[in-house]
């Protein structure tokens, strides 16, 4: 397997791509989770108009393929006069797209939350943002953990689409290596293996946190 030796020799390319993927995923996941949590509020709002607007956003995102969404932002926003570089476009797309999914699964967890807990929060004088941050969000995040883990894996997979707008992530670097040294088999196998490792890491972390969550319940 001469090919793998070539990949190992030029491993800095793959390592750079892997690091970039990890950075993109970390930023994308954090952004999507924060925005998703904020989105869960209008999704659970009592006012019909607010709820309808938030639901429309979530439904729209659930109909668009991620790649099309990336193009929409990459080519569409400049024609509205907004210009970003590839990196910010990619991360913005990842955050906006996945926040809809995060928001929806947090909403479902919130709807399943026992009402007594929230009423107890009211009784203790919590309201508004404080109620959301201290009483509602922690149990919702804990009970939605497995689903959040699945969505994180989806973010890892979505990040590969960013190769299309020339963000130097793992798949992009694997393609670059393939075209430079003509080692298609080894370079893509290396990329797939690294994606696998990333997701196993995510699954392990989520599993660990989930055990912690079960203990607290």
């Amino acid at each position, binding site marked *: 397997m001469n090919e793998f030796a070539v990949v190992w020799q030029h491993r800095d390319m793959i390592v750079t791509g892997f690091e970039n993927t990890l950075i993109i995923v970390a930023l994308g996941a954090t952004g999507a989770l924060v925005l998703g949590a904020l989105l869960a509020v209008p999704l659970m709002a009592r006012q019909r108009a607010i709820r309808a607007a938030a639901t429309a956003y979530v439904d729209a995102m659930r109909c668009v*393929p991620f790649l099309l969404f990336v193009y929409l932002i990459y*080519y*569409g926003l400049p024609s509205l006069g907004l210009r970003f570089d590839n990196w910010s476009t990619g991360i913005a797309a990842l955050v906006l797209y996945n926040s809809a999914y995060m928001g929806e699964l947090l909403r479902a967890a919130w709807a399943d939350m026992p009402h007594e807990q929230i009423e107890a929060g009211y009784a203790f004088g919590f309201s508004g943002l404080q109620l959301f941050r201290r009483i509602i969000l922690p149990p919702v995040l804990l009970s939605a953990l497995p689903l959040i883990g699945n969505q994180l894996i989806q973010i890892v997979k979505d990040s590969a689409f960013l*190769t299309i707008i020339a963000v130097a992530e793992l798949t992009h670097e694997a393609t670059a290596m*393939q075209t430079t040294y003509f080692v298609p088999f080894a370079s893509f196998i290396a990329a*797939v293996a690294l*994606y*696998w490792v990333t997701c196993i890491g995510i699954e392990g972390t989520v599993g660990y946190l989930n055990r912690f969550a079960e203990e607290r319940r």
Partner: protein
Amino acid sequence: MTAYDYYSIVHAALATISISLLSILLGVPLGLGLALIRWSRVPVLNEIAIVYVSILRTCPSVTLALLLFFALPEIGISLEPVPAGILTLALGTSAFDAEIWRSALTNFPRDQYDAALSLGMRRFTRFRRVMLPQIVRSSLPALVNEMTLLIKASPAVAVLGIVEITRAAIRIGARTYQPLPPFIFALVIYSLIVFAFVRAQRAVERRYALAGAPA
């Protein structure tokens, strides 16, 4: 955008739909096979199925498409873009389908299986007449959900040069310097396809409900 541009996106939609349908036709039975291997704990194959599902579940479709298209010729299997694209989506979806089928199999009521055994049904008859109709019904909603995810992953095959909806829209945008109209039209078409799948699922479920028999 001219009328021809709209037509070319609609035409590309046929590619998206046929590639997706073929991947579903391959992926769903493959997933069932994997689930049966895991359910009956076939030695060695069971472990292979576990690793297969774990890797494919986490593998981005773009990367898988590039791997299949550029790497398979190295081991003597040369695929045209369209078969490579279909294989990509089918392998990706089969890992998720396997998990869906497996959960239906493990939730299958044991007493029915024992009843079929006691009637002296052969293994294949038992599976086809007793288990299959019921696990199809219980996994259908999740399978259709996975099909809509497959359609959303299908633009990945554009990296192989297949002209499907997204790629057709990009071409028009690049030519007219107005990317927004074709993208929005493409978005509408994707929504229609996903919507059609969800409606089809509802219709099938209603037919099952009319046929009686509690799930």
